[in-house]
């Protein structure tokens, strides 16, 4: 970046829209996979932890340790095992979602008022019906809150996967740093921030749509 270079060269942006779209797609795929798998694992772990409370401590411990390990380090630790591949990236990304999702799922299930649980059992719901028809729907706001944080974090972390060759918007960031080219850098960084906010906003909408009982008051 020499003085006199404009901060963003829009002509570069215009001529590279295809690339930008490609990286954006990659980013979305990486993030989506991580959230999807993370949610699936966390649901199982969370549901089991609320059914068998002694599970909660070890589960939290493991996911906590995974969360504490810095992302780059985690990817690096996996490289000898799974190489510079999408699997490494996904294992790392999924690990980061686990702590917050599991915590929120358990907290959400625990927050169901005891009398609602009592009424459901008293009316003849099986344990499974209780879980799927009552506890999980009522836990949805808390779960979605956790999902929001997890998604936003994952969008950010996916940029780091560029360092292990995975692409996404991080590719532009790295490229910009290496080539001292601010435009590319800003495109990468700016888009990842925008993507994170868009994902957050979308989930807020999802939460609003799927929990009508939480915001309809007496008319």
């Amino acid at each position, binding site marked *: 970046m020499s003085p006199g270079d404009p901060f963003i060269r829009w002509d570069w942006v215009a001529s590279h829209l295809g690339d930008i779209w490609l990286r954006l797609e990659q980013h979305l795929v990486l993030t989506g996979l991580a959230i999807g798998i993370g949610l699936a694992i966390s649901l199982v772990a969370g549901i089991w932890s609320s059914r068998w409370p002694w599970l909660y401590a070890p589960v939290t411990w493991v996911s906590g340790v995974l969360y504490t390990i810095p992302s780059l380090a985690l990817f690096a630790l996996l490289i000898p095992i799974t190489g510079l591949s999408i699997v490494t990236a996904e294992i790392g990304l999924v690990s980061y979602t686990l702590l917050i999702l599991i915590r929120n799922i358990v907290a959400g299930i625990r927050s169901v008022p005891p009398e609602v649980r009592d009424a*459901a059992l008293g*009316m*003849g719901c099986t344990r499974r*019906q209780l879980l799927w028809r*009552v506890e999980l729907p*009522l836990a949805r706001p808390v779960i979605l809150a956790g999902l929001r944080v997890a998604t936003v974090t994952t969008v950010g972390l996916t940029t780091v996967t560029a360092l292990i060759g995975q692409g996404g918007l991080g590719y532009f960031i790295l490229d910009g740093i290496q080539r001292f080219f601010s435009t590319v850098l800003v495109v990468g960084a700016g888009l990842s921030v925008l993507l994170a906010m868009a994902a957050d906003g979308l989930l807020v909408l999802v939460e609003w749509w799927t929990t009508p*009982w939480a915001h309809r008051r007496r008319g």
Partner: protein
Amino acid sequence: MGGEPRMAGEPIASANQANGTARAQGATVEFRHVTKHYAAREAGAAAVEDLSLHVPPGEICVLVGPSGCGKTTSLRMVNRLVEPTSGQVLVDGEDVARIQATTLRRGIGYVIQQTGLFPHRTIAQNIGTVPDLLGWPRSRTRARVDELLELIGLDPALVRDRYPAQLSGGERQRVGVARAMASEPPVMLMDEPFGAVDPITRERLQTEFLRLHHQLRSTVIFVTHDIDEAIKMGDRVAVMRQGGHLEQYAPPADLLTKPVNDFVARFVGSDRGLKRLALIRLADLPLEQTSLARVGATIQPPRNATDRYTLLLDANERPVGWMNLAHMPPGSRAAREAADASSPFVRAETTLRDTLSMMLGCSVQTAVVVDDDGRYRGVITIESIAQELRGSVALLPGDATPELAIP
């Protein structure tokens, strides 16, 4: 409600139900030497101790007592939310322990104090919970939901798609009761269902439920700590003591007139006489008549020379108020405005006790009895009520003087 046969999975059915009678008829409920110990508590402190009682079909049995007397625990042993340590609970002669728990519960209505309405489901979905669990066709469930909403006095079109948070406390309690009745269960369990609302609403809910029960005739086991509620609601009342002991199981009148020991007598309260009045309705007493006048007509001389007031009726035979004969002597024209004295207008199912308290503040101490359309049927004077009270007071054992003296 047509004579539809019960759906599969409802093993608790009285013979009437199997024949497809329109109304849900109650099942018998019996406790046989039921005891419940909790391991955590010290030995000797049982939650329920050797409880035995039998509830005939279609009756309301109220379990009443101070906290810690085991009434809620006993209730929850009927639908196996609590399992007895020993003894049996039988519904229609069948030991509930031998019926699959979830199947059992789908055949028993369950109402709790905090309602436990599902906040994330609409009123219609809440009420339809058990029918859904039982696999009823959608149309049948919907029809039943609407029917129940009307029965509890809510407009289905308005309320069906609302959420519990959008209803008032009293409305929610009613929905809770409707939800328990949805599958026409032969047994209903109610745990302080009206406890969480204000006294005025509670009064209304109690009366409404009695009216509903009159139509449905399911067997109800009702838990409360309020002796007045027990007396009002119960066909039979079981008074329990701390430690899960049953002290007396009898119709309310017997509890009031023949308490079996000191505990029951104290629990029932020293105003037994007044409570007795709560059990008698105006319809049980002979109606008296009074002097009448009609709007726009000439006032006639009173029936009795000592009468000071005449009741004014409008064109539809509905009472307007009392006219003081000193101001409006016979021969004058009766106008609406002339009716300046008031007294309560009550229906025949009002209890003597309620009528008495309404009359006490009025200038005319006579209650006007009206029918369901508000039309005049007769009157009851305060003397008649006092007479009734004196009659029952005389039956109370161990009283040196009557507890209530009316000059």
